[in-house]
């Protein structure tokens, strides 16, 4: 695609801006900001990836993956600001998932250890983990707020903090992983996944595109479960004081 044809795609930005303007929706500025940001961010990433691919050095791969993890942590931590030490908990979760998935992929020779594979897969894995952790933290916070009487009941009867939060933890883990599992059930029927569509548009063999997409789906399933469980078990102790009381910030 040339820059001229790319500029023609701005028609798809003009349509919502005009509609928003005439219907007085008041979202014209947001659409413009989102467009400008996405153009700038994606172009920077494109040139950055081009540079890294040309270098073909593991140091640049690690730096890029580090940047992805940093950006994901920075974004997700806003939702878990009440959880003490949430930054390192998120970082540790993302690093664990990244190391686990890449170890399996590269260790079993499923994908080569080249930036063309490692970086996009890392982006999908950590990106999915970031969304999952935001869903998980949102749900856990609202569960704790809504069910504080049940949590305190168990504590008051001599239960441990783990026993007191068990039900809320399980509910939050389940709720945060449901979108990933449900999306997988309708995959190919309702929508063609982005990566697969991109490969097909770029001229790849559809069967090969499906194979790669399946690989990603299976990885995302692992990512979803591990993110919620790991974050859950790292986060729940921070809801309580040393005297096994529900902290005031959650009440």
């Amino acid at each position, binding site marked *: 695609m040339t820059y001229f044809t790319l500029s023609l795609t701005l028609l798809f930005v003009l349509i919502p801006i005009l509609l928003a303007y005439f219907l007085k929706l008041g979202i014209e500025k947001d659409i413009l900001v989102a467009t400008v940001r996405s153009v700038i961010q994606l172009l920077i990433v494109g040139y950055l990836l081009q540079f890294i691919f040309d270098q073909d050095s593991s140091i640049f791969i690690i730096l890029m993956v580090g940047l992805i993890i940093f950006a994901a942590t920075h974004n997700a931590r806003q939702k878990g600001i009440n959880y003490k030490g949430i930054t390192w908990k998120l970082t540790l979760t993302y690093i664990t998932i990244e190391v686990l998935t890449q170890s399996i992929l590269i260790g079993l020779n499923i994908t080569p250890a080249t930036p063309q594979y490692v970086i996009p897969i890392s982006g999908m894995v950590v990106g999915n983990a970031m969304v999952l952790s935001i869903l998980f933290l949102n749900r856990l916070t609202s569960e704790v707020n809504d069910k504080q*009487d049940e949590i*305190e009941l168990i*504590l*008051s*009867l001599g*239960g441990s903090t783990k*026993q007191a939060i068990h039900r809320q933890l399980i509910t939050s883990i389940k709720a945060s992983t449901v979108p990933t599992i449900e999306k997988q059930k309708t995959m190919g029927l309702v929508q063609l996944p982005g990566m697969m569509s991109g490969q097909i548009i770029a001229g790849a063999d559809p069967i090969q595109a499906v194979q790669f997409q399946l690989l990603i789906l299976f990885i995302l399933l692992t990512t979803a479960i591990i993110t919620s469980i790991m974050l859950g078990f790292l986060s729940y102790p921070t809801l309580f004081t040393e*005297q096994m*009381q529900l902290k005031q910030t959650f009440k």
Partner: protein
Amino acid sequence: MTEIALLLDHVSFNVDDLTIINDLSGSIKHGKITAFVGPSGAGKSTLFRLLNQLKTHTKGTITFNNEDILTINPMILRKKIGIVLQEGVMTTGTVYDNLALPRQLQDKTLSKQEALSFLDKVGLKERFLNTKAKELSGGQKQKVSIARTLINQPDIILMDEITSSLDQVSTQAIEMLIKKINKEDHQTILWITHNIDQAKRLSDNTWVLIDGECRYQGPTNHLNEATDQAVIDFLEGGDES
């Protein structure tokens, strides 16, 4: 066992700059019913949460059977100083599930026979055992709450306004139950009520809490002899909360 079950020595509780409990001192005797009365916001429920260690006091010392409660593992303390919460909170499941909860938390089981005996103790029929707990009436929930707390065999039971939302018939049934538990088992009971007449009917001793301070502490039958003007005003005002 000493005669004093609980001893409070200059106990205060603050949240940031707000004082909720201010310099409370006094003692609670074993085997007695002590009523805690006072207007809303006086700190009664907070005090009970301090005693059950759902909150920690910021100043002073609370002693339980001659031991500072802060030196006792909270899980052990909460079994010895049980609390029946105001709302009659039930977990999902049947009445049996709720009764079995304290045992479950200790990886133990509660036999059906034991469950029935506790139901009988609080005046509930056998047929309630498999009823969904959240479908019970307010009074029935409170009875199950009391039975559930009793399963831990606590030395002291704290009851936080457990009759406040009940009708007269249910209130009388709970009052009789409390008297029975106290008489038959010599159970030490601390009871928050906003109903002064109820305190007079049931309790041996009364504490009047106003603005986080204890303004009267003594035998309930001497309550009318109180000289503190705030207490007199409160008694004359009746049910303020």
